[in-house]
């Protein structure tokens, strides 16, 4: 008897465990489904009416300690105006963000709204997040045209995960003291006066020194022992795309069917950047760059005189004790640049999309996070680039995060010459760029020409190239 009951107990325990395991597995599916049907069943309007109801929103975001503080201050200000809404900020570091967010979604704990990167487009296709254009239709206080033309993250025609919540741009930053020491004019700040490529290379040569103080043009220059580089190009699409666009190239071809980077105009531009490293010896190769610190420190320690990288470095530069400035990017044919940035997404699982929308609108208005717009972010509402008073509030060159020349060199040069950024325009961008970046490794290291490497990449990524969201 006893033996049998013992066996039964064991069997029971095993069964119980297996049930828990399978229940967890199924629970996930079922809840996912019910979540979606619930959302599709209800329209936004039903949920919005009760404005007196006490509402709690969960908001996931990333960012530096300063950004965290600014966002939390903005939340306090928002809660001051909307007494019935409380916002629970969940700060997640950037590297873990998607993993944590996915875990939250899988566990039925999805936030109401969130910062987001390129992965949001997949969520849009999966119907997990609201179409921004649907939300904006119901709000008379703001319209689509108020935002920057190319500031949208769309996953289909007329289906958008929102405009940039705050933008950054490719930027040329320099250490003014090093220009003075070399007796060279600092970079121009007006797009119409941008350096041609040859002028840029000449300047970079004057700013490059080896251990013996020789320039690349002089006899006896030792390219293996360079003490000070003229320029450091961050070797990603963010930095090479302005030059590609400036030469009439693009990431994909106009019809969106082929890799535009493999075309002569684009390959030529990329080859010119590689030549900075391997022919002119004015820029560090990936090998040499590995021992150069982050941009702000590299400029401060005089390892490099100019850096071409994202404008998010302005914040670090403003904190470093250094005489820095910004100029317009060098060009090949005409001036081109772009904005880039994340956007705020609202999850369909949210019980309070109307309130989430209010907060999203609040946080996208520079007035409410002005501090962040005075050193790190750039606004995404067009009027902030046109109304002198508004410009003065965020781009005043007296501000520590906005050096002399900022309005021309960064703000106007981008606003007036903006193209769509490949990241929020090209379909399958993340995967395509992983393949492109791997091929370009060989170009920067000088083992292959840009044309060769990109032709090879083109073959490999053919199935991934599926056009753009804007065309």
């Amino acid at each position, binding site marked *: 008897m*006893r*033996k049998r009951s*013992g066996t039964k107990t*064991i069997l029971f*325990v*095993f069964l119980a*465990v*297996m049930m*828990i*395991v399978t229940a*967890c*597995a199924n629970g996930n*599916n079922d809840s*996912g*489904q019910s979540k*979606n049907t619930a959302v599709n069943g209800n329209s936004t309007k039903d949920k919005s009416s009760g404005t007196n109801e006490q509402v709690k929103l969960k908001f996931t975001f990333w960012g530096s300690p300063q950004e965290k503080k600014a966002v939390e201050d903005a939340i306090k200000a928002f809660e001051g105006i909307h007494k019935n809404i409380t916002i629970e900020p969940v700060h997640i570091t950037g590297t873990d963000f*998607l*993993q944590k*967010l*996915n875990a939250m*979604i*899988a566990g039925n704990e999805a936030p109401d709204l969130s910062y987001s990167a390129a*992965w949001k487009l*997949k*969520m849009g296709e*999966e119907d*997990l997040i609201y179409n921004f254009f649907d939300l904006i239709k119901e709000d008379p206080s703001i319209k689509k045209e108020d935002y920057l033309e190319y500031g949208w993250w769309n996953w289909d025609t007329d289906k958008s995960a929102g405009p940039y919540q705050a933008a950054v741009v490719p930027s040329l930053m320099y250490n003014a003291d090093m220009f003075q020491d070399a007796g060279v004019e600092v970079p121009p700040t007006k797009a119409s006066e941008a350096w041609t490529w040859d002028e840029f290379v000449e300047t970079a040569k004057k700013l490059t020194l080896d251990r013996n103080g020789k320039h690349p043009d002089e006899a006896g220059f030792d390219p*293996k022992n360079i003490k000070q580089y003229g320029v450091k190009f961050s070797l990603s699409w963010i930095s090479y795309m302005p030059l590609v666009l400036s030469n009439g190239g693009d990431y994909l071809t106009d019809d969106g069917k082929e890799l535009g980077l493999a075309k002569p105009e684009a390959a030529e531009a990329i080859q010119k950047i590689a030549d900075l490293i391997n022919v002119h010896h004015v820029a560090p190769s*990936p*090998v*040499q760059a*590995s*021992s150069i610190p982050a941009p702000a420190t590299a400029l401060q320690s005089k390892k490099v005189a100019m850096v071409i990288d994202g404008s998010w470095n302005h914040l670090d530069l403003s904190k470093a004790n250094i005489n820095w400035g910004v100029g317009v990017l060098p060009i090949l044919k005409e001036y081109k640049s772009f904005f880039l940035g994340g956007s705020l997404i609202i999850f369909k699982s949210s019980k309070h999309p109307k309130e989430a929308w209010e907060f999203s609108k609040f946080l996208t208005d520079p007035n409410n996070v002005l501090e962040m717009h005075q050193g790190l972010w750039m606004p995404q509402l067009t009027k902030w680039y046109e109304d002198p008073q508004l410009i003065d509030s965020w781009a005043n060159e007296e501000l520590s995060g906005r050096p002399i020349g900022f309005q021309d060199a960064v703000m106007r040069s981008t606003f007036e010459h903006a193209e769509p950024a490949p990241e929020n325009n090209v379909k399958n961008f*993340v*995967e395509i760029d*992983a*393949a492109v970046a*791997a*091929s370009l*490794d*060989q170009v920067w*290291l000088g*083992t292959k020409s840009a044309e060769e490497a990109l032709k090879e990449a083109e073959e*490999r990524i053919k*199935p991934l190239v599926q056009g753009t969201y804007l065309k």
Partner: protein
Amino acid sequence: MKQKRVSFKNEWNGILFALPAILGLLIFTLGPMLYSLYMSFTDYSGSNVPTFVGLDNYTRIFSGEDQYFYKSLRVTVYFVILSVPSGIIYSFLLALLLNRDVKGKAIFRTIFYLPSIVPIIAISFIWLWLLNPDLGLANELLGALGFPGSQWIFGEKSVVPSLAMMNLWTTGGTMIIFLAGLQDIPRSLYEAIEIDGGSRFDKLWAITVPMMTPTIFFNLIIGIINGFQIFAQAHVMTNGGPNNASLFYVFYLYREAFQFSRMGSASAIAWVLFIIIMALTFIVFKTSRKWVYYEGDGSR
């Protein structure tokens, strides 16, 4: 009758004590594993509702439609072939040296063991500096000896050998296991060979190596398993580059899951790795009958 009852009670108590471990295995290992097996047959991005797609994920990787699968497999096998035998030989020789009665034996043992308790991320950063082609110690040393330098982890051809070399540095754990094995060899065997007039080499070849085969076998299995799972170095030092030359299998898996948001496909990739490792372990076990010597095993 009575005796049987007591023994069953013991059995029951034993199971009770083992229950936490059994439950842990079921809930935290077996359950998730089966779940991921199921996921490998679905299209799952991490956020959507998984839809069943049959063998699609598997055909996609095996047909070569996913251009990275075979590449990462080649890179990983290359790494295992370089790092496992060299790691075993190196740590075996180290263990032989440190088993001798040298002065400061304990200090040397500590020194050689130390790197294996340093977190792999920290090790990666140290070696990033050592292997820097322009400023690193490695090329300085080679230069001082009159040899040309290498691009190390920045060269497509040299990146995997560089990482295998770096791996040698962290084989302290293997060395400790060899040391333990060496100390288990009865002194009487050596004495017998001394009486017969055998040389040092005879001792090594006729006694030490055969007596150590079970330990070598163990370290070989562990080495293969660990070798296939190399990840942190690619993540921290090379990002899979240059030109995917260090796109190790697990790094490829990680990229598929977390950068490309294809959890279903990543699950399939993980299961393929599981089967590869199982198969290799099985093969090594099979061949072990031919070369592993167990003391007290009369059949040999």
